[in-house]
């Protein structure tokens, strides 16, 4: 690998204080993610995947350790730096979609494109996830999978340098799941986006450059794929 390092994590821990109980969500993570690469994070429920992704996305701060996005040290960035990092560099897909119920699909995407630097059209993003005929529906009028696709459209619409997805296909059937993954793949290829995708589904790992296995807050294994499968070759 000779491409540029986009993310670098050194000795990252994250501990949640729950009264007198301490939950160690992450216990010493060292990890590098490279420009243009597609990484998949695999692990059991509760292994710390979302926590890791949150720290990468500037949503959460580690309890100890350092994390860099290029030259920016996220672990010591100011509120203002984090905000503009999220605004101009990161596209995020939440595990629970988090659409705004009072806005239509199109508007849910527009919210983000309105503040981004070089966004695509909101409708274009929806078209990419196959929802051009549902643009004016409210979240309550969409199925779970459709809501998830709106969430993905919202993340890719700003043409982000980094795309972080927390189980983007969790609620989708095979066919739609593949469509969504293809979209992510296309976007990351075309834009050279650095992508990290969390999943429970081990077969998705086959389309990644690298697969990071998390277990109880620690990286148990990192696997490099010599050949990447295309999404429609995956077996679910």
């Amino acid at each position, binding site marked *: 690998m000779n491409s540029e390092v986009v993310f670098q994590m050194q000795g990252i821990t994250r501990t949640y204080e729950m009264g007198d109980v301490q939950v160690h969500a992450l216990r010493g993570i060292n990890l590098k993610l490279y420009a243009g690469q597609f990484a998949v994070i695999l692990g059991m429920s509760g292994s710390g995947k979302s926590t890791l*992704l949150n720290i990468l996305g500037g949503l959460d701060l580690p309890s100890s350790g350092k994390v860099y996005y290029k030259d920016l040290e996220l672990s010591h960035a100011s509120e203002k730096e984090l905000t503009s990092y999220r605004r101009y560099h990161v596209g995020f897909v*939440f595990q629970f979609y988090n659409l705004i119920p009072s806005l239509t699909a199109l508007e849910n995407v527009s919210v983000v494109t309105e503040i981004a630097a070089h966004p695509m059209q909101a409708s274009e993003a929806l078209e990419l996830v196959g929802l051009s005929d549902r643009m004016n529906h409210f979240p309550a009028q969409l199925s779970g999978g459709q809501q998830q696709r709106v969430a993905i459209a919202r993340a890719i619409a700003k043409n982000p340098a980094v795309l972080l997805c927390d189980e983007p296909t969790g609620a989708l059937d095979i066919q739609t799941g593949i469509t969504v993954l293809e979209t992510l793949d296309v976007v990351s290829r075309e834009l050279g986006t650095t992508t990290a995708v969390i999943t429970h589904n081990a077969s998705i790992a086959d389309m990644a450059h690298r697969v990071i296995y998390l277990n109880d807050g620690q990286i148990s294994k990192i696997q490099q794929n010599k050949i990447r499968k295309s999404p429609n070759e995956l077996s679910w």
Partner: protein
Amino acid sequence: MNTLDRKVFRELWLIRGQVLAIAIVIAAGLSTVIMSYSTLESLQQTRERYYQEYGFADLFSSLKRAPLTLVQRITQIPGIADAEPRVLAPVRINLKNYHDPIQGQLVSIDKHNPDAMNKVYIREGRMPVKSQQIEVLISEAFAQPHQLHPGDTLQIIVNGRKQQLHIVGIALSPEFIYQIAPGTIIPDFSRYGIIWMEREALETAYDMQGAFNDLSIKLTLDADDKLIIEKLDDLLKPYGGLGVYDRNLQVSHHFLSEEFKQLDEMGSTFSFIFLGVSIFLLNMVVGRIIASQREIIASLKAFGFSNMAIAFHYSKLIILIVCIGIVLGVSAGLILGNNLAHLYMEYYRFPYLDYQLQVKVILYSTSTTLVAALLGTWFSIRKAVQLQPAEAMRPEVPQRYNVTFIERLGIKKYLAQPSRMVLRHFERHPVKALLSVFGTAFACGIMIVGTFFIDAMDYMVNTEFNLSQREDLTVTLINPTSYRALYELNNIPGVLRAEAYRTASVKMHAGSHSHRTAIQGFSSNNVLHRLLDTQNTAISIPDTGILLTEFLAQKLGVKIGDSISVEFLEGKRLTRQVHVAGVINQYIGLSGYMNIDALNDLMQEGRVISGAYLAIEEGAEYTAQSILKNLPQIAGVEEQKSMVESFYATVGDFMLTYIAFVSGLSIAIAFGVIYNNARITLAERSRELASLRVLGFTQAEVAYILLGELGLITFLSIPLGMLIGYWLSYGFIIGLQQDLFRIPFIIEPPTYAYAILVVICSALISGLIVRRKLNQLDLVSVLKIKE
């Protein structure tokens, strides 16, 4: 409009019922402020302009008699710009077809002096000129009830002589904006009138040729009025000067100022309450919106919206609601203000009304509302801003419920599952539940403040006029005379009982405080006219010392045992020391009371009386009155019944109009708070309740959980609400204390009952609405998306 703004509008539309309820409460507060203060400002400006244009004097004094040549010496005092001597004469007025006694005041006008002070404004007719007949102007307030017009005549008795007067005009004067007979505190337009007569004619009628008995002074701008008053007092003393006083003690000006103070007080109290409630409501609604949008806020942050942007987004919600309230409130306030000001014009005789749009009032009140609303909801907004974006990634942690305290008491077995859910929810969110209880209680309290006035007024009138002053007629003699007069009065057919009294106008001094008032002296044996304590039992007047009205004692800063110095403004004009023998509770007026003999001794006068209180046999009123009317020594006869009537017709009417308005608003507020509370509870729990429906609970069972909570809140709020109402009313009464009257702190049980009824009805109606919404819940869509 950007997408987030669209979100604001959609969400507002979704809760439009609540938005409207809050906007109405805001509008209620604002319209009260705008109504009160634009009326106040307009009346103050009108008064100022009127005083300017018609030369209202700065200092006033009445005296026995002084030669006109004295005026020259007066004007030489530095600081005095002008001095105008006049002749004033108390008269009795007889009108055809009107049998009640009428008191009048003759005032001389000097046609030859264009710079005269206290000039008259001619509403109708013309100025009097010299002719065979005596031409006069009469005051509009008096002319109206009797339908007198130029061309009519009236008869007066001045100095015991009858005279026929010809009305040539109807007039107003800055001196008599509030037209009230001397010594009384309630205006009675049909039984007291002002008559302006040409100076020469009046001099002749009142035997005052070349003399004057009333002085008006205009000061220069830089004058030191205290010093001038002292000098003038010295100068006028030999001529029977009754003490020079400034505008603050001029009857009309004083009453008007008191009324303005009261308007100010009512405006500020009610607007404060309304504003407080609307901010409370806003906070409740916005707080709940923000709480339900945790994930949305966090994801907006994850997308790179700054804290400022988030704060601004939710502030817009508040600003919009407040703006709706402002639009409603300002328009209602302007309309109501105009009406209120015109209502005032019936009691206050201004020639015109400068009702102006008070831009300052509007700007000030609306911006205060907005700022207060934003400050009041700052806590909720800050909570939104402080949310960590990582929160967006997690579903809300299931809330930890406990077995409730009540259940632990062991009555668990009596509670069905739904009841337990109500209680657990209550214990789980104690702050939220307390706020709801408090909000509802406040609504109940406001109802009480809004309506207890009527009780208080009735109580005041009843104690003052039915228990304390039980006479039918009060007769005032022209000069203090011996007790023989009392026996004569007693012998008038129809008079059952006559009780003597002595009054003396005085200036009381204690330390740096002083107050101009009157001392009334009567006997402890009085049955008709008595003093009462707070329990309404008669107080006997001590043989020595003085009793002071509580509010007067406060004003003078004295207590029982202290000594005050009393400067008599009549008779030998002595200044004497008297000890305060007691403080009494009185709702109307501010006076001192002494034993009649002690008072006469103090004044070093023999056993004299100023008048008498009479009880008249039923059916004999008319005969007694007509005999009294023709007795020459009598200056005036006042009828108790008509005092009560005119109290209700003027002061009472006025307060009650205002209060009716306020209690109407209180209902709106009570409903607003309770309805909002119900809607918020519904919104917060619809997901949970929908799940229960899915699990097989019936509509009724689910409704029970929701309505049970509302019922519990309402139930708990009632005693608290009564307490809040009690304290709010108390504070309000303290603020409204004034010389004219003090409203007693009386809240009758029906007032509480009425407030409780409104609260319960509001709760029932809100409950029904919520229940209907609950039945219409679309189970699938509620469960499908996370809120």
